[in-house]
């Protein structure tokens, strides 16, 4: 049947009925798809404000932004930002009374439960930062082990589990100072998500509770706004613990408890989940936790074929904890490099920078790659060392873009 179809298609295209042929081609594809799999369901309620055309749906809890949607927008619109929920998102009742949402602050001299309205009296700050899933780029690791007996579990994100957004809230430091300061002996800030865990399950098995080093206190904020609007339920509203420079999972949604603790959380997601380990090994508490992000960049324009002549090759670069110092772009897959220009506003060390290389391209095939260097001199590797859960991919080779110039 497939052979027959291809013959038909070629025949019709050769006949000059290009538009009709294309329409029939699409119709056939849709039909063939129906025969094998049911119609895709509409987005779950909590992400219905996103346009499915902009997104790649891996599951109802893992939704990636298409690479073509990055474009040249430095701030990623919330309706395109990726989704990764570790447990099912709560209902709209969570955001019914945003100012009334309560968060318990523990491990301070005067522990107290505060409402968002009370938090708003204690301080105000905004941070622009890259929010990136720990597994962004996992697909590139999974490609490496394809066909072997090694397995890397997890969503096959490419580059779209990341965005650059602005969070507004209160510095956690200001909250702590109002409550008498941190108790001595605290080594971690442990945030707990408010998702309800159903009966019959050990809460520690599935609850979202993450610990980050207490040194992050200078940067952490309890945020209620995302890029100028109250944070949607999908992205953790009414209140999210934001740890700038740390990968997505550490930014706890629906935060209901913030505790200064001597030990890391005993929840599985902290104890054995999100750990850096070898392929074939299991996650364990003695392995490094997935915390700080590393220097990274990728090309976002162009992604398809372009005309010969002057072209602007652009993308985004960030340094995790550090500012980006420079970006190089190669049009020949990394054989030769040219320094790109950093353009647009510098919104601080946690935000990404837009880069552009103006290039005169002759007809031919090209592979576009970018390589960033941070302010501490860390350079993106060609290929990062593989790890068992496929975390923290920051290589420059795999996200390369092949284009034809005509």
């Amino acid at each position: 049947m497939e052979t027959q179809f291809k013959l038909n298609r070629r025949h019709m295209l050769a006949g000059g009925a290009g538009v009709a042929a294309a329409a029939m081609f699409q119709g056939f594809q849709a039909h063939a798809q129906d025969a094998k799999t049911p119609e895709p369901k509409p987005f779950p309620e909590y992400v219905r404000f996103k346009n499915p055309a902009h997104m790649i749906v891996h599951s109802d809890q893992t939704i990636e932004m298409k690479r073509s949607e990055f474009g040249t927008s430095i701030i990623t619109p919330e309706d395109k930002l990726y989704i990764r929920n570790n447990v099912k998102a709560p209902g709209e009742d969570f955001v019914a009374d945003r100012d009334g949402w309560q968060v318990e602050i523990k491990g301070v001299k005067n522990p107290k439960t505060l409402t968002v309205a009370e938090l708003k009296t204690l301080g105000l700050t905004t941070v622009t930062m890259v929010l990136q899933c720990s597994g962004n780029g996992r697909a590139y690791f999974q490609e490496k082990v394809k066909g072997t007996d090694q397995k890397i579990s997890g969503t096959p994100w490419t580059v779209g589990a990341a965005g650059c957004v602005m969070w507004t809230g209160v510095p956690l430091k200001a909250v702590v100072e109002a409550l008498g300061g941190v108790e001595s002996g605290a080594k971690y800030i442990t945030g707990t998500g408010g998702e309800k865990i159903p009966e019959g399950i050990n809460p520690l098995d599935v609850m979202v509770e993450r610990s980050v080093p207490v040194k992050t206190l200078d940067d952490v904020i309890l945020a209620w706004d995302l890029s100028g609007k109250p944070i949607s339920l999908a992205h953790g509203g009414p209140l999210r613990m934001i740890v700038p420079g740390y990968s997505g999972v550490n930014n706890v949604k629906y935060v209901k408890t913030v505790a200064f603790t001597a030990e890391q959380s005993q929840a599985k997601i902290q104890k054995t989940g999100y750990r850096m380990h070898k392929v074939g090994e299991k996650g364990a508490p003695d392995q490094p936790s997935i915390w700080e992000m590393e220097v990274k960049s990728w090309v976002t324009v162009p992604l398809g074929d372009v005309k010969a002549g002057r072209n602007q090759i652009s993308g985004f670069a960030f340094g995790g904890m550090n500012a980006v110092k420079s970006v190089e772009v190669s049009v020949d897959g990394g054989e030769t490099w040219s320094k790109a220009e950093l353009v647009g506003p510098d919104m601080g060390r946690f935000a990404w920078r837009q880069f552009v290389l103006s290039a005169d391209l002759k007809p031919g095939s090209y592979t576009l790659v970018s390589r960033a260097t941070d302010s501490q001199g860390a350079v993106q590797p060609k290929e990062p060392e593989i790890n068992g859960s496929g975390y923290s991919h920051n290589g420059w080779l795999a996200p390369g873009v092949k284009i034809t110039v005509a």
Partner: protein
Amino acid sequence: MKFPAAFAMMLCGSSVVVADPAKLELGKKVFLELAEPNCGVCHTLDDAGTKGEIGPLLDDMRPDADRVEAAVTNGLGAMPAYDGLSKEQIAAVAYYVASVAGKQ
């Protein structure tokens, strides 16, 4: 025939593959009983009659066997690694989920 037709034969591309009923049966048992906690506590899967909502809806996700096997073996995100299951049991539950998810 002991098993419903959907179990016995599955369309895979253009070729017809005969399913392994014993493996499907074991896989369903692992899904519902042998895994601890059992898969249905967190996952919705029509074929197994489960309505769990903690993790992804398997009928929507339609993972292939490799993906299930990796997730059950290694754990993933909030999902624990299932150390208590044998390789055979994990292969069976992976085969079962990949065979039935989204097929009803």
